[in-house]
């Protein structure tokens, strides 16, 4: 056996190791980059899920932007007020109170409520369907049910079942607004989490035409406008819109709505989705409700 091979191998590897180690040691001193220690602290305060809701590639980029002063302390939409105040502590700034927000989808018409006029076969995306003739549902303003919002949601708060009934789990929803950006029909609004009354329709048709495309459409009758004590609800473009700065959550409009397109959100901590939509007893309508109280 050739013993010289062993010590040659040992010398070769040890030599390489020592040489490369020395080079790296020198390089780490010579090419040391000063990093602002606050970046690390801000990064620790952020959730660290790299969801991208802020528009930057990950939490580290967001932390750097905050420290550089390019981004506000409230940049983390997913983290909400707690994270913003943590970041504020690191940066030595007080943060005003942030109202927690959640996403709300302004369309209630499922597959049974809004008839199907065509079968859409194509790229499985709302944005594609919108450009290709507006998808298969009769209502040209309603939800396309191809789940672009659910796919983009970083916390999986939006679910859409077979009957095209959409639910936003407000316990999970962080109000980041990614779904609102992606919806081709602009149906998703980011509203204060405390909001309780919702117009669940954005159909621009009025009267009989609106009802012909969806049984629970807003027909633009303006009854809600008349009963609102706070001047918070207005019909514009054929559908009612609530101004949540003025709304007092009294629910008068929901009681007046003849098509049940206005509903009341009843928050419930025990509910797996943080609450559910209810119809109040119809104050201004005679006879029993046409529809049950389920969403």
């Amino acid at each position, binding site marked *: 056996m050739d013993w010289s091979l062993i010590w040659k191998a040992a010398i*070769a590897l040890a030599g390489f190791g020592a040489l*490369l180690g020395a080079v790296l040691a020198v390089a780490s001193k010579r*090419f040391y980059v000063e990093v602002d220690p606050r970046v690390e602290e801000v990064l620790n305060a952020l959730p660290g899920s790299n969801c991208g809701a802020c528009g930057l590639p990950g939490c580290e980029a967001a932390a750097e932007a905050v420290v550089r002063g390019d981004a506000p302390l409230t940049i983390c939409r997913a983290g909400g007020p707690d994270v913003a105040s943590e970041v504020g502590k690191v940066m030595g700034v007080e943060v005003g109170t942030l109202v927690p927000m959640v996403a709300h989808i302004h369309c209630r018409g499922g597959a049974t409520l809004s008839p199907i006029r065509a079968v859409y*076969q194509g790229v499985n995306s709302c944005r594609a369907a919108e450009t290709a003739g507006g998808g298969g549902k009769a209502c040209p303003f309603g939800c396309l049910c191809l789940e672009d919002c659910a796919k983009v949601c970083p916390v999986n708060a939006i679910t859409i079942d077979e009957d095209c009934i959409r639910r936003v789990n407000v316990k999970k929803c962080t109000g980041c607004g990614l779904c609102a950006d992606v919806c081709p029909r602009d149906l998703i609004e980011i509203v204060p989490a405390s909001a309780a009354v919702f117009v669940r329709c954005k159909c621009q048709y009025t009267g009989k035409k609106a009802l012909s495309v969806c049984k629970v459409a807003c027909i633009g009758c303006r009854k809600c406008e008349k009963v609102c004590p706070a001047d918070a609800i207005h019909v514009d473009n054929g559908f009612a819109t609530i101004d949540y700065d003025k709304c007092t959550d009294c629910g008068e409009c929901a009681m007046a709505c003849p098509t049940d397109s206005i509903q009341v959100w009843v928050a419930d901590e025990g509910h797996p989705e943080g609450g559910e939509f209810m119809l109040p007893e119809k104050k201004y309508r005679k006879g029993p409700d046409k529809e049950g109280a389920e969403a």
Partner: protein
Amino acid sequence: MHEAWRYFLLFFGASIVANILLIRFIALCPFFGVSNSLETSLGMSISVIFVMVMATSVSWLAWNYALEPLGVGQFLYIPTFILVIASLVQFVEMVIKKTSPPLYRAMGIYLPLITTNCAVLAAATESVKPGFFTKLNIAYNYGFLESVVYTLGVAVGFSLVLIIFSAMRERIDLAPVPKFFRGVPIAFIAAALFSLAFMGFAGMFGL
């Protein structure tokens, strides 16, 4: 044979005919790992080209000027190359971080991943032992320029396939795929068909 033509054949053979991903099935982990989106695969490709060429140059020097003269190259090349490549990537990462922050932001996150990439080690090995992974016993040693051109070919072939495949996967994501095939399973099937298509190049120029 004309000199330039020979280099072209070496490059073409390494990148297309004996493609590292689809024909030799080396480095399949990044192939499926980062091919989710076009953007990440572009970043990965640029980093791979950069690191592979440098790693091969350094390991070629290590082989020809240290291991072979000592007569220990035949059994010591793997540990030595791993050592050399890992240190080199670390070193380059530090230099880039200091000298060019934009470049660091573009490739930074991929550099540590490539440290232990098998394609990099394969290219380094083949540049000193031609035909090693195709079980060809070629009694021929690449010169320095040849090994660099060869490695560039391997890296470009890797990038080409990775980028095409990520574009394919982006389109597959939108297609109505049966439930059980969604995600990685359909990617495997697509990769297999893609590999079959590349087999069509086999035998070109006798490579």
